[in-house]
């Protein structure tokens, strides 16, 4: 049993889809504004720290309702966004999830980040266009869903053999 950590929020907007999104940012205003713009289209949960986010992901997996997309700020106290995503990428047994790193870093720093893992990683530079961000989250959610489908097919094929 994994307990839900404090400092986390769940929001399901009026038109929220089956796609589940976790948003992580230590800036409370950025966090609440992200939840607001995503809430109409997705089932959104949010938290202000990467450590708490890892617990939320574990809870979601234990509940058989994993997140499709995790959006995280890069610069955060304690575990930063990139370390957080590396942690996710090392969990090979977890269902596929797409990760979007939100950053105010200049592009040349973003280009230097190496990401050779199997999880999908995207970058958005703050301040991004909200409408495009929502579309991007939807696209990444579809990728995670598709990867899960492929994985399920592989498992089924192995069982048949």
């Amino acid at each position, binding site marked *: 049993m994994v307990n839900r950590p404090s400092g986390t929020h769940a929001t399901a907007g009026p038109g929220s889809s089956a796609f589940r999104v976790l948003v992580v940012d230590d800036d409370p205003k950025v966090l609440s504004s992200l939840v607001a*713009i995503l809430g109409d289209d997705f089932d959104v949960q949010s938290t202000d720290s990467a450590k708490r986010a890892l617990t939320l992901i574990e809870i979601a997996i234990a509940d058989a309702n994993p997140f499709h997309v995790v959006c995280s700020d890069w610069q955060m106290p304690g575990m930063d966004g990139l370390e957080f995503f590396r942690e996710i990428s090392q969990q090979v047994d977890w269902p596929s999830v797409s990760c979007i790193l939100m950053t105010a870093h*200049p592009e040349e720093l973003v280009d230097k980040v190496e990401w050779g893992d199997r999880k999908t990683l995207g970058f958005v530079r*703050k301040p991004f266009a909200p409408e495009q961000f929502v579309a991007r989250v939807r696209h990444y959610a579809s990728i995670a869903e598709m990867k899960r489908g492929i994985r399920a097919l592989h498992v089924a094929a192995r069982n048949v053999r």
Partner: protein
Amino acid sequence: MSSGWRDPLAAVERAYLLDRSTSLLRHDVRNKLASIRNMAFYLSKRVGKSALASEDARIELFLRQIDTEVTAADDLFEHFSTFSRTLHVRIKEPVSTGAAIAVAVDSARASTVGVAIAIDAEEATIQIDASEYALAIRCVFENALEAVHLEGTVEIVGRVTPNGYRIEVHDSGQGIAQPDEAFREFFTTKAGHIGLGLNIARNIAKRYGGQLQIATRDEGALVVLQVSP
């Protein structure tokens, strides 16, 4: 120790200070702009089609203008950031480690009165930007001079390593109580300082594939500047 009018590292230090300050500001400002833009988008979706919006056309106009103004502010900041990053043109060239240490020590702005300075540096030539390297050494050296408070010793040891060059600066001061905090930008325990010296040294070390490490010893502090250009 500096005796002349001209500080040979002033330009590169100014460029670094401006770049670091801009970088910190950029992060904070962009977070604020992101919130404003997201909130305006949300309000636009909620209010944009309401009766209130149809009564007063300025509501939709202003919400749109918030978005365009945020974009314009971000662009302005980006131009300034680009400008600040280009103030110092880096030139990687063969640099004598002995000469770099000499420039750093000679141009240090902290008083050396009452301080015994010992230098034991192996001579080598490394490919690096001369001004940046000397600035990094000076930042570490000045930190050591200030730590001994006009009474004590500062020892600089330079050695060739398999992949670069290591400079150890050992002082006989009180040691660094919070080594992790020492790298936090604008954190200082010294009056009249802005708290960027060791941070600048670390950034330069990282730029050249190295690192800056801090250790407190029985007597004083040891700061190690490793570059692997």
